[in-house]
């Protein structure tokens, strides 16, 4: 019993720790969102609640902007859906690791599933394989991000975006993603997947609604999978 509790706590705090560097970049982002949402004409409660009801950074920025432009409600909902489409990829990617959980756990973890919770969690899972209490890692990472997002939104609402741009704290986000992706690049299919996705994301960056990101991700996944299959075939004929 005691060991079980220790293992859960161990996974949970490992998740919180892995999330930490990302929070440096998320905090100013949340403050900017809070300040921007007020400027866009949302009430304080609405600006704050969007951070827990939608809980997805970039779609909240775009929604606030569309509300400001008095876009029709259906357009705003649809835009949120398209901007967040990439979460289905995360859902698919984590699914094999969470398959044995109860629906209640799956519901909670799905609510907490963001870019920033997904990245450290999948890297942890791929490195360590399926562990009995691995879902506590995602809970730790997800809750750390969730509470930071709520707190930074509140600060942004009441103080404005008080952290100066020149501190470049937002750069901590891509840096953390770099630290996570580079060790994952073990072998040619993975490197090719990363490079092709990166190039397509540059070529398609002008597409609206983060569609460039989705197109790039799908390209990288296809390139990696095809290369791996080819390598396997070559290995067989040899």
């Amino acid at each position, binding site marked *: 019993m005691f060991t079980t509790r220790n293992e859960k706590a161990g996974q949970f705090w490992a998740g919180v720790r*892995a999330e930490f560097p990302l929070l*440096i970049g998320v905090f100013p982002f949340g403050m900017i969102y809070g300040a921007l949402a007020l400027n866009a004409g949302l009430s304080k409660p*609405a600006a704050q*609640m*969007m951070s827990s*009801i*939608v809980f*997805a950074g970039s779609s909240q920025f775009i929604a606030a902007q569309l*509300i400001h432009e008095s876009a*029709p*409600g259906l357009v*705003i*909902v649809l835009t*949120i*859906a398209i901007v*967040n*489409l990439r*979460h*289905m*990829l*995360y*859902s698919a*990617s*984590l*699914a*094999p690791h969470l398959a044995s959980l109860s*629906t209640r756990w*799956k*519901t909670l973890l*799905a*609510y907490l599933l963001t*870019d920033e919770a997904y990245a450290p969690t999948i890297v942890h899972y*791929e490195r360590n394989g399926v562990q009995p209490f691995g879902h506590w890692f995602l809970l730790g990472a997800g809750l750390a991000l969730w509470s930071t997002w709520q707190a930074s939104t509140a600060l942004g609402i009441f103080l404005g975006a008080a952290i100066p741009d020149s501190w*470049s704290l937002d*750069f901590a986000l891509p*840096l953390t*993603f*770099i*630290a*996570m*992706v*580079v*060790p*994952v690049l073990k072998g040619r299919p*993975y490197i090719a*997947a*990363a490079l092709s*996705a*990166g190039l397509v*994301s*540059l070529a398609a960056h002008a597409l609206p609604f983060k569609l*460039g*990101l989705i197109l*790039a*991700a799908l390209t*990288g*996944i296809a390139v*990696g*999978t095809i290369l*791996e299959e080819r390598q396997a075939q070559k290995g067989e004929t040899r």
Partner: protein
Amino acid sequence: MNIWLVMLLGGLVTFGMRFSLIYLFGRFQVPETMRRALHYVPPAVLSAIIFPELFLSGGVFDVSLTNTRLLAGLVAILTAWFSKNTLITILAGMAALFLLQYWL
């Protein structure tokens, strides 16, 4: 449409997409190719997020010595490759960015 209703629907759609495959997995037979493809989601998605942050400045493709984020990003990539340590990578990248912004 009421703004609270818009947020509620937007939240529901977002949750639905996050929940979809976590919920469905295991209820259906997942093809082997699909299972294999899932391993490429992290490198593909993360690179698709990283590349524009490094190569675009102000929405324009910029490969020059004045693009401090690209240079600092390259420092971070090399650091990550050799150190395999998250914290050291971030510190190296941030330090490089500050120094380059100061010098250039």
